[in-house]
């Protein structure tokens, strides 16, 4: 197995002087291609900060993040934007779909954000295939408001995979769903990541979701502790 993600000694400090808050302290981890890992921890533990740094949304105060050979911490703001569009897939707490675009268009939109776009017909075909795998073939033409919460989150999963990313970052995907629906969504997510040989990190505070992942990491007060499921 090849190592795809390396986080080495990452610290994140917000503010400075008296008001400085250390959100993350000397966190290190590495992920191999195809791994799906859960990141567990209570709110305020630093898990969102770690996810943001890995995803190129925040720059670390010290330490390095390397994803597929790219030094994420060294990217400029513009490069970060391109990096996120092409290399990372995101699934947010609430699906955050574009409300005036259909499910299919929400997926196809991702292609327009890339620097190297695939032809429109090809993007459409890929969107339809993803929606089909997620059990949404007959909902492709629906607007988000016509979809249930679970369906919306499934569209968001499709969206995160649309640009064939190296890494999928998932932020509390079940926060807006009830337990049964949450399980279904995570199960589907795990299956998609596995079948496509993708690597994924899922932030959650729900221990029951860990069974769908290869292993889990715990984070507490900014300290990352590895644990094996």
């Amino acid at each position: 197995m090849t190592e795809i993600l390396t986080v080495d000694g990452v610290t994140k400090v917000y503010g400075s002087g008296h008001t400085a808050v250390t959100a993350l302290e000397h966190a290190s981890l590495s992920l191999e291609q195809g791994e799906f890992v859960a990141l567990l921890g209570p709110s305020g533990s630093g898990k969102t900060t770690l996810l943001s740094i890995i995803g190129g949304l925040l720059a670390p105060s010290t330490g390095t993040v390397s994803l597929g050979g790219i030094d994420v911490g060294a990217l400029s703001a513009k490069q970060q934007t391109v990096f996120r569009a092409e290399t990372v897939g995101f699934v947010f707490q609430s699906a955050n779909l574009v409300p005036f675009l259909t499910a299919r268009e929400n997926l196809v939109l991702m292609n327009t954000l890339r620097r190297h776009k695939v032809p429109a017909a090809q993007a459409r075909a890929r969107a339809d295939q993803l929606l089909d795998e997620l059990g949404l073939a007959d909902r492709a033409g629906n607007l988000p408001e016509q979809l249930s919460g679970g369906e919306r989150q499934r569209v968001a999963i499709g969206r995160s995979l649309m640009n064939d990313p190296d890494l999928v970052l998932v932020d509390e995907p079940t926060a807006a769903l009830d337990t049964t629906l949450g399980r279904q969504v995570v199960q589907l997510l795990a299956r998609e990541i596995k079948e496509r040989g993708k690597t994924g990190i899922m932030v959650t505070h729900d221990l029951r979701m860990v069974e769908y992942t290869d292993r889990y990491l715990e984070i507490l007060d900014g300290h990352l502790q590895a644990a094996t499921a």
Partner: protein
Amino acid sequence: MRLGLAELRRNRGRFASVTAALALIAFLVLILSAISDGLYFGATGALRSAPADAYAFSTDAKGSLVRSSLPAQAAAQLATAPGVRQATPLGVLLTTGAGPRGELDVAVLGSPDPRGAGVPGKLTEGRRPSSATESVADSVLRSRGVRVGSTVTVSGVSTQVVGLVSDASYQGQPTLYTSLATWREMRHAARPETRGDTSSVTAVALRLDPGVSASSVQVPAGVSVLTKDETINAIPGTAQQRSTLNAIIYTTLLVAALVVGLFFALLTLERRDLLASLKALGASTRLLGTGLFLQAVVATGVGVVVGAALARLLGLVIPEGVPILFRTQTLGVVAVLSILSGVLGAAFSLRRIARIDPATALGGTLQ
């Protein structure tokens, strides 16, 4: 797929409100512009349409055709001054006459030469006068029943209209171009106090040789020469009217910018979470900003089209005599300024979009 245009198409109802507001503003601006143009053109037509480059007045008249009076001798001197190609003496009389359908206001403009510098070069109908009792009239007088062949009488002095010209009103009164002799007769009849004066004229219209400026013409004492533009601006109230109406128009356009600005500021505020997650997904501020401007341009553009249609409809029912003039050029300027106002308004939200931190898309508020 353009995000901004997709939103316009799918959320038409939401943009309808701002477009309607912009349509009403464009309507207001266009009506104000049409009034401004109508007043301006009605006041200045006789001067603008004439081929003269400059006008000579008595200095104490301060550029007012109504107050000016020049002795015949001064007019003759001007004709031979270096740099002057053609000098046409003019007699001006703002008065009331009678036409086929009764009373009408006219500006009588007498000149000895029907092809002179003070008379519009192009007829829209009929021919030029061939005798001293014939005249050419502003085609506006058609609404009062005046046609080629009609007789117009001023204080008992008659003239036969043999041709029509367009855009030839002076101070809101349609012009009647007569011979100098007819003008003098009419003047004597309408203003008995002038009967002793049998030789003076009001002003002299000048055509200058190429490269000669109005100020360089050598003039007799007590005579000043103003360029055509200066003469137009010296018409009482014209410049003031125009600047007042323009001030109202520009203020209204500023309101348009504010309306667009507020609309997009609210939209951006409401879309904050969505914009943050789009940025997290890799949408650049540039892409989102382009969408914003596209929306502003389309909303303002549609507003202008609707507003122009409304203004034209109102133009159809406005009674004759109201000085209102719709010009394509003005419509173009208003359209461009409106769209600029829209873009300016939208620009305020650009900063807001740029400042949205994509990192806020993670974590959220749900726990």
